[in-house]
């Protein structure tokens, strides 16, 4: 899984955001060890597209989102956004360029200031940048609240604790969209919500995207959720990219063993699909302090061979529009060992 390489990138003139060879490392305490959170990944997003970033905890998906925002700036690599290299900017220049990017966070309640009124939370960006007059500001708040399904007359003076989790996430969306950003990075926006509310928020994000012409990066661990909203999916594992492609292709013919395992781990609400007939997952994600050599997924991969330890796979196109970083990609229809032990391959 290693996922070095840029074969999956599209021509720069077609994209709004282009991330090249992004590396983010943190110091692990005073031990001198390094946490390799993101190791040399590249990705791009076209105007109006939704890019889904999916993987388990610790795969570096949130770190990637934050590094694009320069929170903190990456260790190395380039982040080209709308003609600017974000990593080269600093101070006032970075601040003003970054207004065109917004984030929506996982925990809707703790990401809103509990002491402020909803209208002030939504209007803060407008007030900081002084882009709108006082009267227009009120109109804009009303418009935003209505767009996300809140009642401005009744609810604009309320504070976050008076709202449910789903409503707080609606406020977060209004706050992000109000300044007309070009790109919104949604970091696990529905993971903390009930399944019924999750559907409401996913529908709302699709509506807002259409209405305001937004471009989204959608980060989540649930492949079914990501598939529902994305135009292109990037599957990550331990700081590397495994597979890139359109959601329907990845779902029908996953080429990376990890993608297959991830798909088969999703619980399906259908009793005729027996859990024991689905692909087996062994072990847990290794520590990013000392990632495995070669392909980082090899320690859990049922197809691992000696080559996988020695050599890092490079991203290659397996079929038009589908890119995979694997020495032994799955052929269409190829299966992995199932959980009850039987299967064509040795573990």
């Amino acid at each position, binding site marked *: 899984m290693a996922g070095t390489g840029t074969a999956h990138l599209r021509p720069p003139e077609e994209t709004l955001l282009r991330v090249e060879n992004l590396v983010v490392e943190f110091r692990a305490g005073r031990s001198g060890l390094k946490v390799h959170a993101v190791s040399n990944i590249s990705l791009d997003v076209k105007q109006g597209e939704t890019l889904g970033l999916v993987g388990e905890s610790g795969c570096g998906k949130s770190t990637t989102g934050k590094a694009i925002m320069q929170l903190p700036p990456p260790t190395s690599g380039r982040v080209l956004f709308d003609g600017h290299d974000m990593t080269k900017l600093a101070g006032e220049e970075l601040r003003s360029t970054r207004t065109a990017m917004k984030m929506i966070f996982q925990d809707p309640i703790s990401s809103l200031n509990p002491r402020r009124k909803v209208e002030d939370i939504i209007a803060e960006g407008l007030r900081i940048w002084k882009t709108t007059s006082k009267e227009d500001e009120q109109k804009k708040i009303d418009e935003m609240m209505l767009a996300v399904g809140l009642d401005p007359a009744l609810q604009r003076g309320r504070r976050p604790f008076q709202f449910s989790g*789903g409503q707080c996430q609606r406020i977060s969306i209004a706050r992000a969209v109000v300044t007309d950003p070009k790109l919104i990075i949604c970091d696990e926006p529905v993971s903390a919500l*009930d399944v*019924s509310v999750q559907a409401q928020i*996913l529908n*709302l994000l699709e509506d807002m995207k259409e209405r305001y012409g937004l471009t989204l990066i959608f980060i989540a*661990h649930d492949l079914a959720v990501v598939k529902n909203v994305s135009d292109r999916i990037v599957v990550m594992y331990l700081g590397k990219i495994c597979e890139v492609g*359109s959601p329907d292709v990845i779902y029908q013919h996953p080429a990376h063993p990890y993608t297959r395992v991830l798909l088969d781990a999703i*619980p399906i*609400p259908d009793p005729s*699909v027996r859990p024991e007939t689905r692909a087996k997952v062994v072990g847990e994600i290794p520590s990013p302090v000392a990632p495995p050599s070669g392909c980082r997924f090899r320690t859990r991969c049922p197809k691992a061979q000696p080559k996988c330890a020695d050599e890092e796979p490079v991203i290659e196109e397996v079929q038009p529009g589908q890119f995979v970083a694997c020495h032994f990609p799955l052929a269409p229809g190829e299966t992995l060992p199932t959980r009850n032990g039987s299967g064509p391959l040795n573990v």
Partner: protein
Amino acid sequence: MIRRKKTTFPGTERFADAPLDGPLLEVDEVKTQFKTERGLVHAVDGVSFTLERGKTIGIVGESGCGKSVLSRSIMGLLPTNVVRHGSIKFEGHEIGHAKAAEMRPFWGTQMAMVFQDPMTSLNPVMRIGSQITESLRVHFDVTKEYADETAVALLVSVGIPEAERRMQEYPHQLSGGMRQRVMLAIALACGPKLLFADEPTTALDVTVQAQILDLLQQQQRERFMAMVLVTHDLGVVAGRTDDIAVMYAGRVVERAPTRSLFEHTRHPYTEALLKSIPKLAMPSHARLDAIAGRPPDLVKPPSGCKFAARCPYAQPKCLTDEPPLDDPDQPGHSYRCFFPVGSQAGRDALTRNLAAGETATGLPVRKEGEAVLTGVTG
């Protein structure tokens, strides 16, 4: 000669007279209410079910539907501001109003629980080994060496590598999945007949979730243990339980064998829950059928059917009369609805609502019973 420490609680011998047949657990009209400043919260409002030995039941519902309070009511793990009604029988023993001291012999040896968050449920300053042997040493007259050997065997059986070394470690040294395995080892230590798993995988990654669910199922089968699996995710219970009870606003709204519940869904709430889950087989950008609105306030629950305000099938009758939990079409498949999904009455109700553009509660509806989202806040 048996030497007994003063602190020893009765172990299995206390239940030497326990019957070997008959249902393991009988829950009858259980009501659990919390006294708060706003008034009585009807968290569990008249739930009945029976669980046979070695069987599994899934309890499913949104946050706040009372599913966790129900399992805690059965275990007797409730705070002091609680009012309890109804009867809970475990192997014929009435435990519906038992105090903590009376419940203590049951905990661990008869029934045990695995909680949602393995980090906060484990004691952070106690070694893994001591946390597993604690209940063994309390309930059974065993030596420390024997308890330690048992604990190592338990850790091996729940799939923890290097079990002997792990015995000496603390919870923070383990990953989330490993901690949940330790929680399970603790719960299984005294060989309970009934295991409660309260959202056991909600805090875990999807691949680890699959492993833990497989492990729970394997242990449940090997030990012929009954299990109550509490979750908000119908996907989690689909392939793994014998029966499912769907809860809404403190009540069971539909209860059926798993296959029947999915294949012949009767209650509109169950249908709505199923529809709101994004499925892998759906094309991307497919619009999800969200459930409009929010669950009712449990201090002042509405009269009539509790789900009426969010239900695309709602008729005037639903606002005044509460449907009983009954199984008219198929024995064992009971539901609370006057206009069930898949019946002529249900189809007629939906047709009427579609023609009117709204339900009896004023909820706008359009094609296929999908509620209009605009203006509805969640």
